[in-house]
């Protein structure tokens, strides 16, 4: 056997376990889910079919379409607000905080990230609830007479999400800000650009990949999240993952849950296509 053939065999041997795992527990389940999305429910049994009925239901039934719209609205607002709040934070850490404290500042910014995912939403419930800190403060300072209904609303879901994703975006934006040579801003100033013009025409375009990368990750993680809307949003309006869980749990409607998941995947793919030009996923 030639050397290269032996090497190739060795390579495949080393790859085999990881490939087998990925095929058996990722590719195959994914294919099964897509196949299931075209199946039919007859009573409580699943009948294999090539029926686009589930997709038609998602597009036509108001409850289903509503969940898709809710998910999109919440995700877009969260992504936008998080990016707008994170940019100044990243810029202050990159340009105002002394260099040797920057790493610590970033670490402190992401520390709450390591609170348990389930507990984080619960903690916001404590903060935003009827008797929570925020309402105590507002009523105590006589800013409002009655405690505000924040928990169990869309606002609470958005606050919970923004809290989490500001950290993420701060990291990706910071990473692209520190790569910026300081001479660029100086050159712009020498050429007569004011602070705003320098930001608008030099700094922002050059750090756009960091913003878009963080925004894309935010979009993907936010739209697929079940816990945050479930704990903070109450049950007044459903998001797509909540609807998927509902189909699985209450009615055992696996085909519809699968179709909803495929729709979720399509939305994420569209987001990827829209941002691919600026994405730097390999650099995070």
């Amino acid at each position, binding site marked *: 056997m030639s050397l290269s053939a032996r090497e190739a065999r060795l390579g495949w*041997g*080393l790859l085999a376990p990881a490939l087998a795992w990925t095929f058996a527990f990722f590719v195959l389940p994914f294919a099964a889910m897509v196949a299931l999305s075209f199946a039919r429910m007859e009573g409580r049994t699943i009948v294999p079919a090539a029926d686009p009925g589930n997709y038609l239901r998602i597009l036509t039934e108001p409850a289903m379409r509503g969940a898709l719209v809710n998910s999109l609205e919440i995700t877009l607002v969260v992504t936008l607000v998080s990016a707008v709040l994170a940019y100044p934070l990243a810029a202050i850490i990159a340009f105002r905080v002394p260099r040797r404290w920057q790493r610590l500042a970033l670490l402190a910014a992401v520390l709450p990230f390591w609170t348990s995912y389930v507990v984080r939403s619960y903690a916001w419930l404590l903060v935003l609830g009827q*008797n929570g800190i925020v309402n105590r403060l507002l009523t105590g300072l006589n800013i409002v007479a009655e405690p505000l209904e924040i928990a169990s609303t869309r606002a609470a879901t958005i606050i919970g999400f923004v809290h989490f994703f500001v950290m993420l975006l701060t990291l990706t934006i910071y990473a692209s800000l520190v790569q910026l040579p300081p001479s660029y801003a100086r050159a712009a100033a020498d050429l007569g650009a004011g602070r705003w013009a320098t930001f608008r025409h030099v700094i922002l375009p050059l750090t756009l990949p960091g913003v878009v990368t963080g925004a894309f990750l935010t979009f993907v993680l936010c739209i697929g999240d079940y816990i945050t809307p479930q704990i903070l949003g109450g049950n007044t309006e459903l998001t797509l993952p909540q609807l998927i869980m509902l189909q699985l749990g209450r009615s055992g409607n696996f085909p519809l849950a699968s179709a909803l998941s495929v729709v979720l*995947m399509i939305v994420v793919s569209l987001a990827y296509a829209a941002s691919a030009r600026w994405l730097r996923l390999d650099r995070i």
Partner: protein
Amino acid sequence: MRPLAWAYLAAAYAFIFLPVVVLVAFSFQDGRLPVPPLKGLTLDWYAKVLADRAVRAALWNSVVVAVLTSLVALVLGFLAAHALARVRLPGSAALRVLLIAPMTVSYLIIALGLLAVFNAAGIRPSLVTAGIGHVVINLPLCFAICFAAMGDQQKAAERAARDLGASEARVLWLVSAPMLAPALAAAFFLSLTFSWDEFIIAFLLTRFDVTLPVEIWSMLRSGLSPAINAVGALVFLVSAAAVMLAELLLARRRA
């Protein structure tokens, strides 16, 4: 500009830390509800939680699942990274994409697919099925970290070992793995925190024995309680410790 920047920084950190501070503060609440006013300080809730059989079982399950799945993901990821970084194989770019792919899919969808396959195969949900799902989400991470860390200086050392007659297994075990130790450790600890904190896969793929996030979820259903704060504070401590360790290991490699 300066004062404004500092004010913004302070406000941002206040926002970021607010829920964590509230969570930890009211885990010491000497009362039944984890909301203001703070009536007094007590460690009772920690004692209660640590004595709770269900919580202890879930804690132990979480540790076992996290350690075992991270080990499996690390070994598979390391071997695959070695193969793709060292051996010229046809279609290696596509293989790399395939191995990374699960990273880009929502955990909910991974869990749903696995549930469909396990149902069809008649396999009951258990810690094993949840563990399989955790390897699926951590394998891409371990692979990516190992692959990125494989530089050229290891290549020379590996070739030297091979020229001196070492078998490939010995090269991997005695040369590549020790040289990559910091990256391997970082990948392991990151996997550990992801598995430790993962909810939706564990929720859908376990039944009677559950992991800690699932147990916390079922505690939540009976309403607010400082006991949940205490569990949350404990989980926070463990995760933060693991992250610090990974951070230190990576920082040492950079230095």
